[in-house]
């Protein structure tokens, strides 16, 4: 340290050195982030024998391009496929129901949290925060017992109920920031003009907070689409009702060709990525709103 201080020339890390470091970090970050997904895409369009014989050679030659893994993964079992299309429609139904219920409930709650003073407010927000941090695996034990008892295992309704409870705290937290940005004066003007509370929420607050609500909905959708643990616990016996996450995870246990497995993984990732890239800016600002407090 002392020796360095005595030598002012060496004390200053060269700008070139910092730049090289920066570029290296960025290149590595991009390779690691996008690499595995790209690998999955490349394997999914090659014939199985090529993948097994030349694992190091990743670029398929034009002649050997083979897209048949996708229809094989998507087709129903009776047609020699693996039923992914059905898993996708199951998951779509579950995720969409979760979004609708979760967003309606959390929008009402978020509005109350932002604009109103009421008894028990602190208890309620502490409750939501603890749901946010509470281990899901622990709840799996009693929920499994309870749902088995009332016969809701193997039903998508039970799953929607759980996803809703798991996503409401996050949704409420994100929506709070968006709703707080709606000017209070506009709301008051509507109320003074004789608008009821629910009508005011629907025709004044909702339209103004729409981008935020869209971003939150997308986030909830992604969580529900990706969820694995509860789908595994409640649906594993019932192949007709499998979700995409459960389906792909179960297929890895069978002797499914790796190319089909990759095609399936890419197919279930695609909807998530499309949504993410479409609403990227909105999502990012919603997710980081809490970080600004410092």
């Amino acid at each position, binding site marked *: 340290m002392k020796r360095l201080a005595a030598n002012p020339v060496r004390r200053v890390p060269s700008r070139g050195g910092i730049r090289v470091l920066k570029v290296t970090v960025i290149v590595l970050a991009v390779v690691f982030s996008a690499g595995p997904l790209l690998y999955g895409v490349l394997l999914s369009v090659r014939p199985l024998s090529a993948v097994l014989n030349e694992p190091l050679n990743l670029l398929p030659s034009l002649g050997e391009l083979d897209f048949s893994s996708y229809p094989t993964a998507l087709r129903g079992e009776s047609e020699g496929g693996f039923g992914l299309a059905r898993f996708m429609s199951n998951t779509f139904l579950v995720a969409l129901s979760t979004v609708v219920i979760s967003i309606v409930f959390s929008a009402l709650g978020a509005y109350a949290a932002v604009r109103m003073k009421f008894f028990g407010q602190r208890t309620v927000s502490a409750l939501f925060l603890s749901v946010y941090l509470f281990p899901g695996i622990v709840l799996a034990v009693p929920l499994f017992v309870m749902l088995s008892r009332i016969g809701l295992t193997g039903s998508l309704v039970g799953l929607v109920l759980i996803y809703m409870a798991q996503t409401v705290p996050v949704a409420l937290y994100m929506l709070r920031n968006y709703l707080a940005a709606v000017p209070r004066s506009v709301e008051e003007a509507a109320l003074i003009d004789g608008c009821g509370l629910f009508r005011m929420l629907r025709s004044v607050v909702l339209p103004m907070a729409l981008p935020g609500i869209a971003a939150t909905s997308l986030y909830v959708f992604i969580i529900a689409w990706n969820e694995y643990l509860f789908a595994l616990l409640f649906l594993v016996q019932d192949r007709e009702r499998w979700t995409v996450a459960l389906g792909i995870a179960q297929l890895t246990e069978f002797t499914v060709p790796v190319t089909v*497995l990759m095609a399936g993984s890419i197919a279930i990732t695609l909807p998530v990525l499309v949504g993410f890239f479409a609403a990227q800016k909105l999502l990012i600002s919603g997710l980081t709103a809490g970080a600004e407090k410092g």
Partner: protein
Amino acid sequence: MTGALSTALRRGRRLSRAQQEDLQGRLLVSPTVLVVVLVVVLPFLAVVLLSFLDVRLVDIPRLSFATLEFTTDNYAEMLSNSRFWGALGTTVAYATLTTVGAILVGLGVALALRHPFRGRGLIRALVLMPYVLPVVAAATIWKTLLNPQYGWVNAFGTDVLGWDGPIAFLSTTSEDVAGIPVPVTLLTVVAFEIWKTAPLAFLFITARLQFLPSDLEEAAEIDGATVTQRFRYIVLPQLRGVIAVLVLLRFVWSFQSFNDVYLLTGGAGGTEVMAVKVYTELITRADIGSAAAYGLALTVLLSGLLLIYVRVNRRSEVAE
């Protein structure tokens, strides 16, 4: 007289408006509270209850309050089981390594992408991708990449780097590398979780970096402070708050992580963390009481660590 009346009226109206607000507020949160009580609070109470019962999966249809017999056997068995202590150690190591790793990686990438350049938006989006991917798809692709027969990593290692043979990344508890035992599989799972969660750290730190005032750094630069000095004395202190939040969130979530470990290894190769243990007790061993005891132990430990964290944080805030 009229003045007093109008004050009373006004006071009366204000009071009733506050009451109205109170009522409406409670009405608006009640659906959410109801679901949370049903799906989170009641089940949690049930875990406590179940952990003191000797119940197995086959007993579920016949379960009734009248015939319950309380016992502490589940806890006695758990605490005397070496696998419990093993799982605990693995969980602490896993949570610590992934938390530190994810924050360091997130910080590094956030700093590298701090100043605008062409294409930064696209790179930011690419870097965030692992966080939104379905964990099942990500794990399936990683398993293929690491496969000993046809995975790219082992092919690259043996053909290009000259490894003696392929490495079973997902089932090697310990492997001697230059005489030092290395927990290969645990580190692989840690790497996966860092890969999957570093984007969140990146996102939070980037958001904070955008709000740093630039004048301090500019003044320091004019005074001849080096890049490292500016980082160490100006940027880093201002990131302390957001890093503290990240340490809390990441540790709590990694400590209870189930999906990542279970999907990659199923708990093999020395990666049996507490969450996986809860699952195997429940499903594989069909022992509900024991699963509940493991689950409650996980919760109690996590709450204890949270309390310590809050204490320490508060003390350091007071000290400042």
